[in-house]
């Protein structure tokens, strides 16, 4: 019963938000995300000896039920969604938004969709939430976005939607193979998928995987991402990069790897190589970016590439690493965007060639930038390191040929990552302040938001045990 609250709270407050005027939406959003976070924290505190479930009949004629299921992985992602949403709300408290009611309404609806995606244990329900999360984001980008928002969001929407439809086709096909009556429940889908002959699993794999690959995104399905991140308003960029890309990875772990083991085994090498190429490719491109948002977008592609590679290496420690890193990457990239939006707000530009001197003009902001950037390049004792170490470990242990070479190539990412990240710090924080713009250092709500992020970075970097324990059980089950 508690699970439904995770979806209902943001959904209902989202609907209500459309009717509010003025600043009411802000308070509503803040309240809603606090409530949701509290519930998510409560759920994550559970002992996941057996998953928490919730099932109600929904559309029996289609064979689908409204069934939710929370295990370590999904509750971890719900917790992440809760934290990130709260930080977004906190950071936005003092920022003016046009048509606030609608803006916050869409944000909350998207949050409801995300929660649903992470909790659904019925394939059709999963698909519904998958779209519910996407559609509000489309409106947010296209109405509150930057100059080039219309073509960019159009492309983003079409691209991801095409993927979603292929996935839907794949899921329907699977549901038709279920033993007995048509069913979309996770158990039945898994049963149907695993009993399919290998050659069927092989083509079905791509039908379903493409949607996830676009969402993550995996090289070469990534080109929607930098443009969309660049054009979206920051809260939306955060939702997209911290949470929605995790939908792709989560979906791989829940709806692909257990469902089509033979297909996954067959294509693993291909996906791993694509991902690893993507790491080096995206890192190289990040080096030559001058717009901070684009730089972070490409860095995120590299990071997701590492996680995706580990997902297909069939190693328990790698899987566990993904769980940890999904959370940590979500926290860190939220921090990065928060800082970027503060830079943009204060300096009026994101062009690094025009920035500099933040360390003298706004030292607290510069310190936050440095800490979050270091977490982003996985310096030990920040949260990023734990996950990355486990991911490399997983790739290293992969049962495919050349696994050591693949790990080393993926490892080039940590060198290139240092290059572009330190470039960014140098160009924004260091140097002489010079410009006549008077830069305000952090305001109270910004302090609070960044404090949440930075405490999590350091705490989970030094003592990752809670996060590891939460997700240990699920990781163990992922391996063939």
């Amino acid at each position, binding site marked *: 019963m508690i699970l439904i609250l995770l979806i209902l709270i943001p959904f209902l407050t989202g609907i209500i938000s459309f009717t509010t005027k003025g600043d009411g939406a802000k308070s509503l959003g803040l309240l809603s995300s606090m409530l949701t976070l509290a519930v998510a924290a409560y759920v994550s505190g559970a002992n996941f000896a057996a998953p928490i479930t919730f099932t109600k009949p929904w559309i029996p004629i289609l064979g689908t039920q409204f069934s939710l299921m929370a295990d370590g992985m999904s509750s971890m992602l719900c917790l992440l969604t809760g934290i990130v949403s709260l930080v977004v709300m906190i950071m936005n408290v003092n920022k003016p938004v046009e048509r606030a009611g609608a803006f916050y309404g869409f944000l909350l609806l998207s949050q409801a969709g995300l929660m649903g995606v992470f909790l659904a244990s019925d394939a059709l329900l999963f698909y519904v939430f998958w779209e519910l999360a996407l559609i509000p984001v489309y409106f947010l980008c296209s109405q509150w976005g930057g100059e080039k928002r219309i073509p960019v969001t159009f492309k983003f929407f079409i691209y991801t939607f095409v993927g979603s439809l292929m996935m839907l086709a794949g899921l329907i096909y699977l549901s038709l193979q279920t033993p007995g009556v048509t069913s979309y429940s996770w158990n039945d889908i898994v049963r149907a998928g695993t009993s399919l002959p290998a050659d069927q699993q092989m083509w079905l794999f791509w039908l379903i995987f493409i949607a996830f690959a676009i969402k993550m995104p995996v090289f*070469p399905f990534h080109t929607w991402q930098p443009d969309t991140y660049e054009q979206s308003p920051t809260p939306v960029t955060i939702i997209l990069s911290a949470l929605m890309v995790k939908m792709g990875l989560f979906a791989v772990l829940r709806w692909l790897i257990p469902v089509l083991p033979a297909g996954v085994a067959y294509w693993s090498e291909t996906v791993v190589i694509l991902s690893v190429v993507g790491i080096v490719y995206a890192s190289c*491109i990040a*080096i030559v970016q001058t717009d901070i948002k684009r730089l972070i977008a490409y860095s995120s592609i590299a990071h997701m590439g590492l996680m995706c590679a580990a997902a297909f290496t069939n190693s328990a420690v790698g899987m566990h690493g993904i769980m940890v890193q999904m959370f940590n990457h979500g926290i860190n990239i939220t921090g990065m965007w928060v800082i970027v939006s503060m830079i943009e707000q204060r300096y009026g530009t994101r062009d690094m060639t025009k920035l500099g001197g933040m360390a003298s003009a706004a030292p607290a902001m510069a310190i936050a930038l440095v800490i979050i950037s270091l977490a982003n390049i996985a310096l030990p004792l920040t949260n990023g390191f734990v996950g990355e170490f*486990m991911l490399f470990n997983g790739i290293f242990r992969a049962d495919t040929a050349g696994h050591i070479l693949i790990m080393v190539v993926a*490892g080039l990412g940590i060198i290139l990552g240092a290059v572009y990240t330190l470039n960014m710090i140098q160009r924004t924080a260091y140097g002489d302040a010079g410009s006549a713009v008077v830069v305000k250092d952090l305001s109270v709500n910004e302090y609070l938001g960044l404090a949440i992020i930075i405490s999590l970075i350091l705490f989970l970097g030094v003592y*990752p045990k809670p996060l590891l324990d939460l997700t240990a059980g699920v990781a163990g089950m992922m391996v063939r």
Partner: protein
Amino acid sequence: MANLVYLVPLFPLIGFLINGIFWKRMPKTLGGVIGCVAILASFIISLGIFFEVKSASFQGPLVVKLFDFIQSGNLNIHFDFQVDALSSLFLLIITGIGFLIHVYSTSYMGHDEGMVKYFAYLNLFVFSMLLLVLGANYLIMFIGWEGVGLCSYLLIGFWFKNRDYTNAAKKAFVMNRIGDLGFLVGMLLILFNYGTLAYQDVFAKLPAAHTETSSMYNWIALCLFIGAMGKSAQIPLYTWLPDAMAGPTPVSALIHAATMVTAGIYMIARSHALYDLAPMALDLVAVIGLATALLAATIALYQNDIKKVLAYSTVSQLGFMFLALGVGAYTTGVFHVMTHAFFKALLFLGAGSVIHAMGGEQDIKNMGGLRKKLPITYITFLIGVLAIAGFPFTSGFVSKDEILLAVYEHNKVFFYLAAFAAVLTAIYMFRLLMLVFMGGFRGTHDQEHHLHESPAAITIPLIILAIFSLVGGFVQIPHLFGGHDYLNQFLGKAGVPAVIHEGPGLEMKEWTLFGATCVGLLVIFLATKKLFAVSQFDGNYSGFKKVLANKWYVDELYDTIIVKPIGALSGILDKFAEKAGIDGLVNGVGKTVRWGGDRMRLLQTGQVGFYIFIMVLGMVALFTLGFFWIK
């Protein structure tokens, strides 16, 4: 006492947190005091630990468990510290010299507006360095390893308004990361083969020396050594260290001479059980060390920046240490770490005192004759020079003598090359001494007017370090001169093997080395005095000297073959592969669909006849298809 080992890194951590959090409101003096006291407290505990480890009752390595770090399935990595002879010796070096440099900094950085921040960074550095040597497994070592790299980065770029400085900081971090990738791969190899990263467990699983050969040992040792190349500035990853001189001078003394750069030596000494099984990797260590010692020494001959001379000298001395490790003389390598920490910290701090007196001037072309105005700095610097040059019975003599002897036993060619590098060392150090302190003053009138000896906070650390540079070698005086291998015995407790010099002819070799050293140094001294104790010094070089003055153009080479190509490749990927290629393809698909839609639209003509025609056509097609399908 050894159970309280966690206090050793804890104090600097607290110091860092206090100064780091309250840096804005903290008065400068208080910030300095907090920084110094934190290290002093660590030093006192380290002393206690050292004597406990030294006592006969101390049984083997002590592992102090703190908490679970990463636990996943079979992977189980704890946050543990290991106390044994090796780590307790490093504790003393780090906190002892660290404390002196902290005290020195209170004066040296006294006028800097970022002083509190400086002490926060310095404490963070000591904390990381302590983690590095205290960790009971490779992962904790790696945490410290990258941590010191971060602090090095922050302190090289301490004066962040200067673009050149921040470039140097970036270069240091990135080059270290290249090494770190090697370290990471080495760790994963260990984990893959032995299922653990804890030293004791790993080494317990290794076969007894030389009973088994496997290329795996070489691979692991090689990967770890790549990490050491980065951190300890060996060929090919050494070019960051001279640039790192952009940082404040005490930082150069602490991080880039006495402690951090010796991490690679610590790592190999710690992993000696592995390296013993990896003869190829060990040979490579020796060759790289020797080559680095020579290359850096030749460059140091023609540098005109006082700190650059010392920086290349550091690179060269680190090469000597690796050479010692490479010939299997692990304790000798560690011994040279210790003596080098004394005299190189002394030399850097002395250089700092000179730079301070000269109002920030670092170019030795504009110095000269400073011995009269800075007597304490002069005497202590002289002692440092004698020690590094290997003047008999100074600490540097004892340790370098031991290295040369070990190398002689191993390979004669290596020995002559190493001896040549030692000669070069004496030459460039005497040249530096003459140019700075002898002859006549070559700077501006203004500078001459301001020349003054530094305050006590600077001179006292100099004096203490000078004393240690003189007598620090006594722990290991050769038997020939009535000494005992105290250090060898001590490190033997941690299982670090020493090369035992015995047998006939040893006495002869010792005497030859001793005699050659005395004569050689005298000749070099007189020659450099004639050449460099002058009141006019040009300092512009041509021909081959220019090649050396320009560091063999290695930076330019790296720029041409690595940095620029990567930049160009990235640009090409961004412009062509990304925008025109992949994104172009995606957009192309979209455009094709649109174009197709536009064409299909024309089919909607509105004429019923056309529709019926199409319908009939479709039915025929279906029937035909169905007919053949069924068949």
